[in-house]
């Protein structure tokens, strides 16, 4: 389940990077290495462009798991993003997206750069899964003395003091 959530979230990441990728649309991808399979032909038609990560929290997951995707590693077309030019490399195994990596990043000066710590979109669903964890404190934007009384932190403080 966790793995699927990751696959779904990276799928959404692709969408927000708008690399022109549509799951199952072979015209936008080029196989760079695969186990004999190619990207030609249709690999399924139930894809979603996922152009907005907020537009969808459920169907990306189901798409990733139900599309008849051919195994292999595919590289999306280079697109300009807020991170510079980005190509996304997608690994599909057993019909599912198992890995997504940004493979080509350049800064404004045209140099290739490795961005090891950048903020990438994440599916709300994956984040929300952590909600049910037991917490001892709550972080949030500054509250006033009055605002504190309605805060989750206030409830936690009352429960443990």
């Amino acid at each position, binding site marked *: 389940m966790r793995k699927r959530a990751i696959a779904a979230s990276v799928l959404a990441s692709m969408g927000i990077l708008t690399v022109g990728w549509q799951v199952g649309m072979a015209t936008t991808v080029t196989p760079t290495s695969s186990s004999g399979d190619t990207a030609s032909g249709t690999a399924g038609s139930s894809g979603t462009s996922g152009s907005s990560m907020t537009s969808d929290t459920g169907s990306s997951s189901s798409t990733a798991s139900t599309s008849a995707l051919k195994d292999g590693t595919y590289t999306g077309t280079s697109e300009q993003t*807020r991170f510079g030019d980005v190509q996304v490399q997608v690994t599909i195994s057993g019909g599912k997206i198992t890995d997504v990596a940004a493979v080509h990043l350049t800064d404004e000066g045209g140099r290739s750069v490795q961005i090891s710590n950048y903020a*990438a979109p994440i599916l709300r669903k994956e984040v*929300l899964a952590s909600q049910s*964890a037991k917490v001892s404190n709550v*972080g949030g934007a500054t509250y006033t003395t009055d605002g504190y009384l309605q805060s989750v932190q206030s409830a*936690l403080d009352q429960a443990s003091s």
Partner: protein
Amino acid sequence: MRHVFATMGTVVSLDLAEPPVGLLPRIEGIFAEADARFSLHRPDSELSRINAGDVSLLDASPELAEAYALAAEWRSRTDGCFTPSRPDGLLDLNGVVKAIAMRDAGAVLESSGFEDWTLVVGGDVFASGAGQGRAPWSTGIVDPADRTALLCAIELRDPRRAIATSGSAERGDHIWSSTGPSEFLQVTVVADDILTADVLATAIVAGGDRMLRAACEGWSVDVLAVEHAGGLSVTPGFRSALAAAS
């Protein structure tokens, strides 16, 4: 054992694993002194008198001089996204004062031999003890769309000791963006120290995408950014810190 007290217009929650044995007056004193010196709601505070022109910044106390120097340094580091200068020209050091007080309170706790504690001040969290054989700190992050609900929870260990969150619609967040409305409704920064976390959270809300990228590249931090439309972005470190569902 949790101790809650109001100060600086907000509330402090200090959770100690051991009895505080006379420590609380010192901790409360740190915040009370900072409030008396830096509050802009008190006409007799040192900062209010400097703003009124009654006292020169050159004659400021060492504490105020330090806060001013830190704020000016962070303004430079963040290319002006963080600034102690309000649009009306007044000097407002509250963007660093809360974090300085939390840092100093943490130093008092440590020098007094306390190793296991969390300090929450107005939504910012500074903690000690996890990662030394103890359980990680589990901290919820408020959902900006529903302040009574959590957006997520993260588990942190040393050296990630500090969590600060800034919002574009909050009072007292010291965001005076000159670049128009922020893309971000709320930004949470996790860092090794509370000052870095607090300042960068404010700077990213004020400076938007460009500052988000600069912060991720320039500092060792984990970030969660919430866009106005509800979209979420996280750094790899923040993603891996997300708590497992229970």
